[in-house]
């Protein structure tokens, strides 16, 4: 009799048994999820590879197309007028003090709140006029592929939950821009360089680039580029400036 009652008292307290059972269920679910995630990751990695390959080809085609078009035109005695650029890179070259209110507001809208901050801007009538308002405060131009890639790889930070997070992994990009089909850095670069349908979201995701002071100096920033200074639209020459500031 005494022996039976002793056996009825369990060796392990009931709450502990329950907790272990619960934990086992959680663990099983977690392992299953991990396996599924691993598979999914492999698939996406292949997809990213294919996409990057396709973009490489596309950029080459874009480059050769311009050359081919102009050659064709010249052969026919015609002139090829390349399309007006769709993308600009804008750098703020003047500081915080003594800025008039309209200029200040436009610079805020362009997300250029600090000296040597850079942003990509889609060029249309509206934005070109905005750039005209703040002309003496910015240096801008048309970036080439190398500029776009190097800026995003070296100084690319994303706005994730209102925080400036470095783009150290494709999963960060996928989480924020996955719904637009942008799942890796190469997708992001492609969207920016060939101003795509989701340029606005992709560009807004990118935190304004914090560039270094130009190595080798700037020419007189108070005058326009055209007059030998640093401000305003310098078209292709922005790439040289970006090389020195990145």
């Amino acid at each position, binding site marked *: 009799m005494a022996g039976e009652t002793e056996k009825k008292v369990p060796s392990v307290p009931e709450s502990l048994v329950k907790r272990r059972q619960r934990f086992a269920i959680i663990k099983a679910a977690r392992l299953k999820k991990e396996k599924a995630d691993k598979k999914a990751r492999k698939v996406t990695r292949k997809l990213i590879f294919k996409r990057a390959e396709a973009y490489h080809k596309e950029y080459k085609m874009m480059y050769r197309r311009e050359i081919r078009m102009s050659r064709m035109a010249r052969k026919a005695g015609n002139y090829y007028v390349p399309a007006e650029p769709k993308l600009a890179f804008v750098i703020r070259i003047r500081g915080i003090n003594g800025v008039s209110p309209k200029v200040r507001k436009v610079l805020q809208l362009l997300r250029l709140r600090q000296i040597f901050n850079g942003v990509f801007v889609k060029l249309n009538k509206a934005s070109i006029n905005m750039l005209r308002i703040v002309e003496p405060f910015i240096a801008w131009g048309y970036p080439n592929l190398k500029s776009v890639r190097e800026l995003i790889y070296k100084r690319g930070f994303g706005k994730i939950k209102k925080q400036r997070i470095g783009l150290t992994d494709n999963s960060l990009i996928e989480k924020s821009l996955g719904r637009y089909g942008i799942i890796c*850095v190469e997708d992001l670069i492609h969207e920016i360089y060939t101003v795509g349908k989701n340029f606005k979201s992709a560009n807004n995701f990118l935190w304004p680039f914090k560039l270094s002071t130009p190595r080798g100096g700037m020419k007189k920033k108070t005058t326009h580029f055209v007059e030998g200074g640093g401000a305003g639209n310098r078209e292709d020459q922005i790439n040289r400036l970006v090389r020195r500031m990145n």
Partner: protein
Amino acid sequence: MCRGGRMFAPTKTWRRWHRKINVNQKRYALCSALAATALPSLVMAKGHRIEEIPEVPLVVDDKVEGYKKTKEAVVLLKKLKAWGDIKKVYASQRMRAGKGKMRNRRRIQRKGPCIIYNEDNGVTKAFRNIPGVTLQSVSRLDLLKVAPGGHIGRFCIWTEGAFRKLDDLYGTWRKASTKKVNYNLPMHKMTNTDLNRILKSEEVQKALHPSNRKIKRRVLKKNPLKNLGVMIRLNPYAKTVRRRALVANNPDVKAKMLKPKRKRVLKKVKAKKSEAAQA
């Protein structure tokens, strides 16, 4: 000579000294304070030396109410192991800090145990000379003595008669108080106060999501343009690009890559020839 004039807002004796508190609130406070005296942790937290006393709440025989000599009272306290509390009172006797010294509040000391009796047959006279001890009758309990300074958990020593009378005075939840008109003990805020068991219960645990103890720390951003590993992590195609660039620019690498290719080509030709021969 001194400056003239009178002080700002001269203090008057007809300052409103008294405050009106609702009767129910007063009784609620007393009930809470008495409940606190029954919890050893709270009494110890107040600072009373009750490590060695036999039980909390400490109830003594009614004979104590008949003590006439202080010597008897001291012996009782020593037997109950409550003398340590009195010793603490002795140790705490000191001069007050501040102007109170010249305002008839020169000496201060700690509060010791509170003796609560039913009938005074000499208890008061026996215990009153022991420093720190307060005497109280059950029927006229004073909140300022049960919770001195507003802090709950005073060490109380009850006589049997006093302890039994508490039921009549304050009621139990099952029956109302007989000594007070239309009064019963206040309702609990929590009926089940065993927080440990509540939190570990099936109902609560089922509603929780699995705990995530992993601490995500800040990742140091490395430059992909310089660090090939990081570059490949971001863009797997970069590996093939880099390989092609190496092959194109480095003649040794190119030669290495070309040599086995020729061998493979020969083998394929041989295989084709053999196939053709077979066919």
